[in-house]
């Protein structure tokens, strides 16, 4: 039975085409009606499909034809829905819809209105393709497509140099990850002869862990390289904070809720591979944990509200990666869902603040906004308690499940994770306190945002608060391997306590004793500066990677290889051809009689040859 899955991505694509072609000529109302309408229809179609398919014990596959057929290799145009996909579809279309609505208010005064919505729709198309894909190649199409949209939207304010640079950075860093992904796919084709989930996973299931180790580990590590790029893990996380140059809804949708979680989704999707590569799992978990910690520490020191949340995103993504790395795939995805709610909410809330302050993003120039923007304040606090892991809000459930799984894996991972949770609570509330408490330190008159922005905030706040009660892990149980382990109340208490402590410290530093933070920072001196400057990672990359590459390209590749050798060869060939032409050109005199002479010469030779060959006989 066909459920016409293709409609789900096709609707936003239609929106993109309509807005892309006609958007310039029609009014803003038409543009956002089309954009939101298509996404809403897509969302409704997801609901209808899922309700029709519902218990969804096994994957529902729809085949639309052969895409590439080469020898025994065949790539199908196939969409599939299983429970994992169902969750992702709901998150993507649901959050996407909310953020589309929010954008109407946020982008109301911006230029390139239709362009923004067209790109957003295009992003939805690619993201849904990514999610629905039933083989790695189609998934890769979505993967690259969302990367493209991310690039386009980061550089949305293309007149700003920093925006285009950030776009380029995101694009290039993602390329490195994609390179790993491509290699993984090549290796898979070589190993399994296919990229179909339905063929690769059973094949790897049959392999014993030991026999599979080498090649599967390699595949997994390469896939993870892709994931580090897309999901902003160490060492490729550097692009995400810069990506905040894009409009805030973009940060919320692409760089918090959906696209950056693609890596997590991909790893969860390929769990049969990862479970056969324990070493790779360890690497994944370690990297995830490290990312979570490092990003959280950086987040503590930032003053740009969006940067804070950006590092928070990196940190939370680290949690998810940690989750899938320790084998708690369900928990990872659950955290993905809850994170989509509260991180989208954080970004949209910060966007609302920025909107209220007419573009001001520096926390030091905010303060006391809770009187001016009450709805934003309340919703942001909801997001804060959710991310801080305060029970019974959504972050608490998902985070604790990951931490418990980590503890089961390696206890030290739990402790670092719990510490990170405390830091997370600290920096989120640091931002909230700096923003909404104390005296207003900026200029201009702050104002509350229009309903088109606040209503999505409220919706997301409700989801952030109650999202933990969604039975996502239970729902996903049949998809993933069973996870043994027990709910240890002690550990839960510890992490909750650390979270509450973080909130408390933040309140102490920024509400009760304003100024204390600066003194602490000053007393820490070098350490603070190290963290404040994000561990000089960008500078190290610049010195270690970018400069040598650029310099090498410029001197060796460009001056020597390209200009010297390749151009030399090409120009040499051209030059010799021209010399030869100059010689032959003497024949081409334009004089008919000369031509005739050459014809005569040729025919004399031909006749002599014919005579020598025996002629007509």
């Amino acid at each position, binding site marked *: 039975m066909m459920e016409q899955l293709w409609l789900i991505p096709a609707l936003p694509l239609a929106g993109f085409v309509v807005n892309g072609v006609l958007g310039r000529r029609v009014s803003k109302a038409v543009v956002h009606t089309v954009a939101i309408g298509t996404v809403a229809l897509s969302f409704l179609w997801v609901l209808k499909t899922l309700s029709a398919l519902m218990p969804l014990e096994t994957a529902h596959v729809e085949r639309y034809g052969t895409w590439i057929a080469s020898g025994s290799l065949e790539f199908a145009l196939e969409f599939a829905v299983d429970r994992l996909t169902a969750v992702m579809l709901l998150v993507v279309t649901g959050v996407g819809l909310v953020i589309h609505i929010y954008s109407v208010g946020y982008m109301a005064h911006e230029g390139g209105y239709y362009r923004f919505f067209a790109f957003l729709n295009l992003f939805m198309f690619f993201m849904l393709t990514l999610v629905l894909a039933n083989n790695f190649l189609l998934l890769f199409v979505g993967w690259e497509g969302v990367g493209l949209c991310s690039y386009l939207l980061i550089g949305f304010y293309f007149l700003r140099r920093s925006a285009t640079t950030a776009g380029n950075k995101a694009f290039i860093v993602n390329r490195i990850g994609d390179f790993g992904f491509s290699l993984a796919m090549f290796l898979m084709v070589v190993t399994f002869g296919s990229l179909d989930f339905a063929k690769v996973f059973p094949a790897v299931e049959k392999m014993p862990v030991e026999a599979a180790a080498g090649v599967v580990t390699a595949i997994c590590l390469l896939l993870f390289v892709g994931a580090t790029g897309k999901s902003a893990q160490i060492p490729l996380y550097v692009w995400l904070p810069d990506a905040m140059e894009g409009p805030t809804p973009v940060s919320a949708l692409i760089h918090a809720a959906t696209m950056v979680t693609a890596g997590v989704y991909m790893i969860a999707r390929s769990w049969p591979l990862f479970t056969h590569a324990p070493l790779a799992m360890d690497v994944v978990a370690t990297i995830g944990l490290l990312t979570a910690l490092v990003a959280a520490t950086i987040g503590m020191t930032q003053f740009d509200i969006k940067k804070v949340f950006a590092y928070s995103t990196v940190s939370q993504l680290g949690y998810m990666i940690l989750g899938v790395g320790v084998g708690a795939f369900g928990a990872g995805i659950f955290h993905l869902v809850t994170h989509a709610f509260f991180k989208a909410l954080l970004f949209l809330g910060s966007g609302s603040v920025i909107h209220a302050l007419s573009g001001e993003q520096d926390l030091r120039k905010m303060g006391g906004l809770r009187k001016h923007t009450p709805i934003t304040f309340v919703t942001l606090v909801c997001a804060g308690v959710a991310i801080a892991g305060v029970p019974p809000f959504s972050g608490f459930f998902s985070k604790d499940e990951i931490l418990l799984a980590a503890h089961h894996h390696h206890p030290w991972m739990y402790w670092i994770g719990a510490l990170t949770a405390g830091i997370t609570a600290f920096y989120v509330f640091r931002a909230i306190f700096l923003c909404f408490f104390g005296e207003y330190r900026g200029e201009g008159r702050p104002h509350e945002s229009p309903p088109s922005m606040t209503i999505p905030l409220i919706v997301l706040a409700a989801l952030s608060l109650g999202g933990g009660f969604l039975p996502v892990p239970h729902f996903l149980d049949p998809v993933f391997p069973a996870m043994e382990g027990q709910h240890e109340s002690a550990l839960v208490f510890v992490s909750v306590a650390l979270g509450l402590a973080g909130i408390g410290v933040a309140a102490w530093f920024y509400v009760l004793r304003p100024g204390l933070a600066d003194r602490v920072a000053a007393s820490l001196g070098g350490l603070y500066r190290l963290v404040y400057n994000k561990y000089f990672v960008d500078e190290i990359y610049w010195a270690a990677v970018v400069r040598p590459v650029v310099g090498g390209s410029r001197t060796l590749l460009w001056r020597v290889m390209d200009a010297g050798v390749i151009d030399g060869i090409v120009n040499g060939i051209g030059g010799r051809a021209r010399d030869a032409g100059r010689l032959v050109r003497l024949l081409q005199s*334009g004089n008919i009689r000369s031509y005739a002479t050459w014809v005569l010469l040729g025919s004399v030779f031909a006749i002599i040859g014919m005579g020598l060959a025996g002629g007509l006989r």
Partner: protein
Amino acid sequence: MAGVPLAWYLILSAILFALGIAGFLFRRNLITMFMSIELMLNAVNLSFVAFSYKFGRVDGQIFTFFVMVVAAAEAAVGLAIILAVFRTRKTLAVDEIDSLKY
């Protein structure tokens, strides 16, 4: 009566053909060059008819007939072109009409 060796006809044809080529090569007047082409065509026609005699078949003469018809068409078009060339260039000297080069 002994008759004429067939080879003589063919050699006569070759001589006329060579004369046609010579005219084409050494004359510098468009019309004369064109007439040299006609001379060559005639030489070939003679060969055709001679071979028609040799093989006792009429086909060679048919070919000659076609050559004549084509030559007539060619003359009509060619002379029209010469007229057009003369109108634009005001000359018939073929060495002056050499703009069709590199």
